[in-house]
């Protein structure tokens, strides 16, 4: 949980009085473009940076008052985590080194490393230097490192940014299975909207250091008065249906596809029934009136547009 958390670098405000509430056990996504303040937020939460103002409490520990306790309960996958391994050390040695730094009992270390490497399908590669592993494998090894001490909260900064689609999918699956297996809280930074949509149950959108929007992913989709696309399949005159739709002041865009018109509507919760009524009144035979799901991309662009206005 953060309260008016702020970080300034000279005159630049990287994080501007942000309030975030991440429930225990949830997968939280912080979305925003590059330079929005996502990485700074993660660095504040894992005590790498000291807040200029405000406070942050992670798993019950204040980041300023109890930084060592915070570091004990968080696991961090830094941005481009696959480049943050000791390249000349083997996968096993990388984990062993950090296990010792985390104060894991000596007799427990081999068991825990084996469990994690097997879970991430890296056990067969344990004696390979980290530098010789593929990007995806290195990223998974960096995830193992973040999980070694069984953290309550996992902070992942752009976990799939430098990965190919297959490796990125594998990492997303891992996040979901880790969430199920250990019930830990995830805080994921990403500018990949589709990714966040797939795995996060709560999101916040940040831009220029400010939180523009925060809440449950599904709730935000329905709560926002964003433009929405409807597909209307008709049995008679498609051109007439398109013409009727174009005449409505709340319709932003109309296109046709065979027997269907695709209509983008502003404020859909009140205008979709108006559009249907207009079409029926004009004698259009509607056989299907369906809405396309609002993607986070729509949501994100809509919020950014609102802010810019």
């Amino acid at each position: 949980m953060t309260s008016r958390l702020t970080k300034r670098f000279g005159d630049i405000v990287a994080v501007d009085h942000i309030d975030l509430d991440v429930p225990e056990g949830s997968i939280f996504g912080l979305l925003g473009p590059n330079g929005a303040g996502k990485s700074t937020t993660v660095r504040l939460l894992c005590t790498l940076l000291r807040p200029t103002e405000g406070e942050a409490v992670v798993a019950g520990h204040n980041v300023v008052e109890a930084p060592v306790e915070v570091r004990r309960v968080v696991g961090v996958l830094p941005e481009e985590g696959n480049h943050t391994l000791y390249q000349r050390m083997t996968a096993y040695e990388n984990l062993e080194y950090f296990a010792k730094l985390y104060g894991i009992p000596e007799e427990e270390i081999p068991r825990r490393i084996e469990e994690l490497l097997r879970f991430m399908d890296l056990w067969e590669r344990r004696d390979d230097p980290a530098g010789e592993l593929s990007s995806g494998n290195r990223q998974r090894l960096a995830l193992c490192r973040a999980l070694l001490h069984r953290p309550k909260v996992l902070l992942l900064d752009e976990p799939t940014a430098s990965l190919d689609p297959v490796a990125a999918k594998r990492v997303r699956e891992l996040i979901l299975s880790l969430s199920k297996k250990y019930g830990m809280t995830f805080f994921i930074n990403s500018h990949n909207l589709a990714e966040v949509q797939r795995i996060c149950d709560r999101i916040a959108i940040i831009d220029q250091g400010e939180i523009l929007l925060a809440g449950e992913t599904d709730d935000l989709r329905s709560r926002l008065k964003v433009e929405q696309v409807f597909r209307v399949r008709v049995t008679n005159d498609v051109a007439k249906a398109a013409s009727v739709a174009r005449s409505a002041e709340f319709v932003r865009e109309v296109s046709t596809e065979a027997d269907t018109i695709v209509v983008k509507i502003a404020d859909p919760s009140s205008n979709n029934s108006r559009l249907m009524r207009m079409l029926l009144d004009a004698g259009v035979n509607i056989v299907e009136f369906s809405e396309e799901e609002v993607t986070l991309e729509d949501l994100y662009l809509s919020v950014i547009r609102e802010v810019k206005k």
Partner: protein
Amino acid sequence: MKVRYVKYSFFGTALLGPILVVMMVGGPLALIPSTSSDYPIMVSMMIPLGSAILALMAVIPAGLISANALVGEKEQRTLEPLLVTPLTDRQLLWGKVLGSLIPCVILLYGGTAVTAIAINVLLLVMGNPLVLFPDPPGMFLIFVVGPIVALAIISTMILISGKVSRVYEAYQTGSVAVLVLMIPLYLPMMQFSGSVGSLDLIWLSDLITFAVALVLASLTWALATKRFNRDQMVTQV
């Protein structure tokens, strides 16, 4: 900086000191007959000089290792995971200091032992008597002052580690502390002007070096521990 360059530099410097001193000290002493009137003069001149060179060459790797210990981790991007472990700042700094100081001291003491053996083997082969290398002031310089200078170099590196982002920048700046060891190298040369007795001047120069190194090490260590912050280590990349 690539790790292999650091490794080559480390072993190169480690070997260079003993080789240089064996050539500079053992060579002339082995070539002059011990019965010659010049022999005691050469012994009194070359042995302190050899000790100073050995100390100087052996502490240089301290700069190399310590520059890599913090700035190197920053450059290789391995610092951030290290900073998010539950280590306190003090533990982190002690780890880095000992990690740099211990190899440097091993190098200093080991290099001295190797050099002493090599010089005396050379003298024996040439039929000259054994010499005490290093002599008492030299022992003080190598076994006491050397590690303090190394500590001064390491804490200077820690002090500047938040300000620089490249190993070579840190190495160039931090290694200035090694200049302290120029005092025992050059000050005894004044004996040739006839102003001060040689042994007194050698002890005096070693004590001055000790005092300067101690002040420098204390000052830089105090500043390094006081000013070290993760914030700066992460943001100055």
